[in-house]
């Protein structure tokens, strides 16, 4: 496996994606919108809290967790486009006729689907956290962010969620011949992460560090299983003889 080759594939994918305005907008706008909306909410809540710190800190972790949900949603559109798009343009066969290995192609496409959405999610989360610190410092007398909980969420669980989303999109891409259909199927990957969000909102679970590590562990195991499945799906022979 040659990382340089995968980066060449990734660079090409990003060049194509850059020209697909709808994908770019969805990746940039959604995290930005979420961060601005939550920042406004926090600013308002801080103004109304009248010096009751517990009111203000309540819900900050669940809002941060929302960026994990975003990390599970955003990569699907690039991953689906980069594979089903090639299927539609029938450009996979000449690509597969080059000395590039299946793994290098898959890794390149995964890098392209992983990097922009993760950067966008982290950027959105950073805006939210900076604004929150600014708005709540006087009430809390300390900066709420960064903390270990947000660290586990954004640096461990969010990337694992993004990988989950990419692998699901690869598997879905082998079964559909339409970018929108693959996008929709890939987009469903947010459901398990949203379920955790709702479970926390209804006090079924707490987003403690221990719980987050357990969830991350589960997602890691699922990611590993999906890795082997997606690698088995993305093989020359399979693509040319079985993909619809």
């Amino acid at each position, binding site marked *: 496996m040659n990382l340089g080759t995968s980066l060449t594939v990734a660079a090409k994918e990003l060049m194509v994606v850059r020209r697909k305005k709808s994908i770019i907008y969805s990746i940039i706008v959604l995290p930005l919108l979420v961060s601005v909306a939550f920042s406004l909410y926090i600013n308002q809540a801080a103004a109304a809290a009248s010096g009751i710190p517990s009111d203000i800190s309540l819900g900050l972790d669940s809002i941060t967790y929302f960026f994990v949900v975003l990390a599970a949603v955003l990569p699907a559109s690039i991953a689906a486009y980069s594979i089903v798009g090639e299927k539609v343009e029938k*450009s996979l066969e000449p690509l597969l*006729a080059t000395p590039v290995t299946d793994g290098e192609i898959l890794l390149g496409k995964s890098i392209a689907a992983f990097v922009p959405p993760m950067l966008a999610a982290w950027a959105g989360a950073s805006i939210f956290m900076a604004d929150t610190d600014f708005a709540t410092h006087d009430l809390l007398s300390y900066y709420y962010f960064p903390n270990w909980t947000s660290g586990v969420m954004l640096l461990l669980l969010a990337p694992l969620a993004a990988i989950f989303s990419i692998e699901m999109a690869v598997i879905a891409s082998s079964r559909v011949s339409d970018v929108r259909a693959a996008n929709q199927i890939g987009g469903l990957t947010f459901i398990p992460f949203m379920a955790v969000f709702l479970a926390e909102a209804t006090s079924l679970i707490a987003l403690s560090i221990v719980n987050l590590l357990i969830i991350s562990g589960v997602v890691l195991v699922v990611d590993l299983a999906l890795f082997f499945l997606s690698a088995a799906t993305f093989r020359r022979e399979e693509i040319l003889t079985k993909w619809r």
Partner: protein
Amino acid sequence: MIEAENLTRKFGDLTAVDNLTLRVDEGEVFGFLGPNGAGKTTTVRMLCCLISKTSGSARVGNYDIGSQEDAPKIRKIVGLVPDNVGLYESLTAYENLDYYGKLYKRTQAQRKERIEYFLKLLGLWEKKDAMAGTFSKGMKQKLAIARALIHDPRILFMDEPTANLDPESAKTVRDFILELKKEKKTIFLNTHNLDEAQRICDRIAILNTRLMSVGTPDELERSVRGTTTVIQLRRVNDAILDALKRLQVRNMVREDRKLMVEVVDPEEENPAIVHAIDAAGGEVVSVSVVGSTLEDAYLRLVRERRE
């Protein structure tokens, strides 16, 4: 350069390629003729190590297509123009070629030189910054050929390169293949265009799941026994027809004042036919001999397989 022995590929119960044995020499333009579903694309895919074989063996440039180790080496020395051009439509012509140059590990200078050479040669240089999606079919096909040649491969596999092209674009592609022939590239050309095969191929194989025949276009034409003698008469009457029937000619067909008679040896049989017509009071205007064509050979071989 390419050698296959009993090469077979099955998809479940369906045999797509059955015991194919052939040899393609270096610098040869080898035509692979066959109807749709004959196994031409499957053969090319096996030889390019895109799909595996079920049984048999094949070597491409002395590398074994069945070896995991040799597969990348084969892909380095071959170029493929698939039946669907498969360009990145939202990338420019230049970017399409540059991407492939990078995948084949060519330096920036090499890529620049090759891209400029091919785009100028194929009349696409002015369009180098235009999105491939805006190109006509002919332009796309030319770009796909340039892409397959960007790494200077020893063997070029072309799958129906002129299918769906207008006559002018098809001619450009054919002329380009003849240029490549001068550069001593080995070209494996899948086609069902008999005229094209006859014009540009050194040898032709006819495939219909199994290899039906292989040879030069002339050899294949000669492989169909029998020619037709066409006799134009001033008039045709029953006495002439009876006289020819008495000669026991095979497959006589009458078209107004023209008689077409199947003969095996025209030099031996035609004088007797003309003499019989003359003796029956007929007046011969002209006599011509129509030989068998590559089309005759192709159709006969394909029908034989069907029957």
